[in-house]
């Protein structure tokens, strides 16, 4: 049986649709993202933290990791979505979050000081679905952090997959090993004291994308965190 050549109308349609048209294979849609609202960082992350995946923000104290986390919370709650914060260090400061633009009414704050309790709570929140973002803060205050078995990360990653929730872990160092699909490290923060009288105007640092299963990595962007009370 001979194959009829396609009609001119179909040829025109195929030409107009251009690269958005896929033939044969089922289309793969990129995962939706939770943007931070900071254009440079969102470009670095290809739109934001991926939903349904495990991501990580690592960095030593005073590097800007909490500021980045609050920016993420602010952007997500501003879009009308609800988020959950599992505060394993009991370090969340509501006035600071409100100053960063977080809609506190859309934040479920889970306060715990035990790491295992924080991991279990995270799993419950992922299973509940409906949260756009679950932020697991494991950056310690001044206590020695407990060791977390890698099976816990595997379990959390599996639970997050298939949901529409971005799971972001905050730590003072890389905690999730190879289980995170995206990992960034906050580096080289320098405080800025300026003015008369002297004020802490902010921190300057760098955000380095060190792991990205969904795209290129080893990129960095400079970031300046401004102290709202000094403005």
């Amino acid at each position, binding site marked *: 049986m001979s194959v009829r050549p396609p009609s001119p109308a179909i040829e025109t349609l195929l030409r107009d649709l251009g690269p958005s048209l896929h033939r044969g294979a089922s289309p793969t849609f990129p995962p939706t993202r939770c943007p931070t609202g900071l254009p440079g960082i969102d470009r670095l992350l290809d739109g934001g933290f991926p939903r349904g995946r495990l991501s990580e923000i690592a960095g030593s104290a005073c590097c*800007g990791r909490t500021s980045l986390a609050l920016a993420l919370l602010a952007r997500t709650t501003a879009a009308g979505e609800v988020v959950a914060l599992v505060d394993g260090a009991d370090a969340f400061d509501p006035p600071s979050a409100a100053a960063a633009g977080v809609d506190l009414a859309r934040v*479920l704050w889970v*306060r715990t000081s035990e790491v295992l309790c924080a991991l279990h709570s995270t799993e419950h929140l992922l299973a509940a679905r409906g949260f756009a973002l679950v932020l697991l803060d494991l950056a310690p205050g001044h206590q020695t952090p407990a060791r977390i078995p890698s099976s816990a990360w595997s379990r959390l990653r599996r639970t997050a997959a298939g949901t529409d929730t971005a799971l972001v872990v905050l730590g003072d160092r890389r905690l999730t090993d190879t289980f995170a699909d995206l990992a960034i490290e906050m580096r080289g923060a320098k405080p800025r004291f300026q003015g008369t009288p002297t004020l802490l105007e902010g921190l300057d640092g760098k955000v380095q994308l060190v792991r990205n299963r969904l795209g290129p990595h080893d990129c960095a962007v400079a970031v300046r965190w401004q102290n709202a009370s000094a403005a």
Partner: protein
Amino acid sequence: MRIACLLVSDLPLAAELRAHPELQGVPLAIASGAGSRAEILSISPEAARGGVRPFTTVVHGRAACAELCVRVASPALERAARDALLDAALSTSPRAETAPLSSGIYAAEAAVYIDARGITSLFHSEAGFAGALIARAEKLGLPAVAAIASSRGVAHIAARKCTGAPGATKVLPPGDDASFLAPLPIDLLNPEDELAESLTRFGIHRVRDLTRIPERALVTRLGGRARKLLNLARGEESAPPISTPSRTLFEESTDLDAPLSHLEPLLFVLRGMISRLVTRLECRALACGDLDLDLDLEGGQRDARRIGVASPTLDPLVLVRLAALSLESRPPPAPIESASLATTGSPLRSDQLDLFRPAGPTPAVLSQTLAELEALCGPGRIGAPVVSDSHRPDTYAMAAFVPNSGAGSLTRDGDARDGDAHAGLSHGSLAVRALRPPVPARVQASLGSPEWIRSALANGEVIRSAGPWRTTGGWWSREERFAFDHFDVQTSDGLVVRLRLDLITGCWQIDAVYD
């Protein structure tokens, strides 16, 4: 006036079978107490076929039927069954009331009266309404009969006449009450014993005999009680119209056969109670909100607790899980002898989805998740953060997490809070991490400014500092007053912290870290 009477002829038996449906089809006897000499109050049809008779002792019953299952009459179950009967009635009409308790041979019955005026607009006929009443009662686990007449008394008597056939109904057309009553024996009017004896002595055996006697002569000889009986015999009623009940409390109770000291059997009992409670609420188009669980413990103690339900629900599994979490986190201190559950019933909340706002977690799932989190993390540690209206910098509060309550502002995807035109430099807001409790520090200060810090967190020379910023308040109360001098300092070990001097105690502390 048209009144319907929904009647359960054997309440102790019906209440037991409602709570323990697995006893259906089993020879069952309800006894007045524990022990072999207790009197049998009610028997199931299977027990009757086995030769057991009411008002004999348990030992006689067991001799007649070896498989006889004997349960002690439970006032708690009967109370719940009576309330369930009223719920069945209220699900069809807003005006219903429980009939006064009967005595004598009708002591075991339970009845409710329902205002049946205008009911044909919903149920097509009074017979259909009576059938619907029976169906609603059966759904709540109560086998009932129903009758409709022009007064409470006549409807009650007509319902008593139906008790031979389960699910039977009787509708007396308007004006037929007197002719219906006339051939009936006087006993159906349930006169007091002394009055019944007098009527028998006078040879009055049927209702028609009573109605033929002039009222004056009857009252002169037998007293005021006879007037009431005569009015009933004529089908006349002087009681006020049935009103809408004000009760909104739904309660289920049970007395346990033996004290329970483990959680699993208690949850099994609670599961049944919650299931019955939910069925009653559903019948009344309500959902279960907060639950009050009262446990009577061995030794006379009592454990009363409220199980919070974030969103009214009709899912018994959610309610059982919440009860389990509450009992696991705070177990009763002694074995449990009886349990009761109560709730006020809340309208089912239907969440209106917003076209422009993403939906959050479903209310039922959220309720369960919050309860599980509270069981994991402890009470008072789950909620939405709130900025306290206070000058004290380390205060915070938590409110109940209600996801759709915040107005918020919707920003379009194109909006960005970074307006800096410098390429590659992103701007954001600097945050702090609170230290709870604040970390004590030993500080060497000069002219009021810190120069050296030694603490569990930051150590070394102070390279840069800003401050002091003085904050005071609560001066009117010894417990609430505070006075701090805050400094933002950078130490030689690379940390940027918020240091404070408590002016009242003279102590230095680190209360936050800039991060």
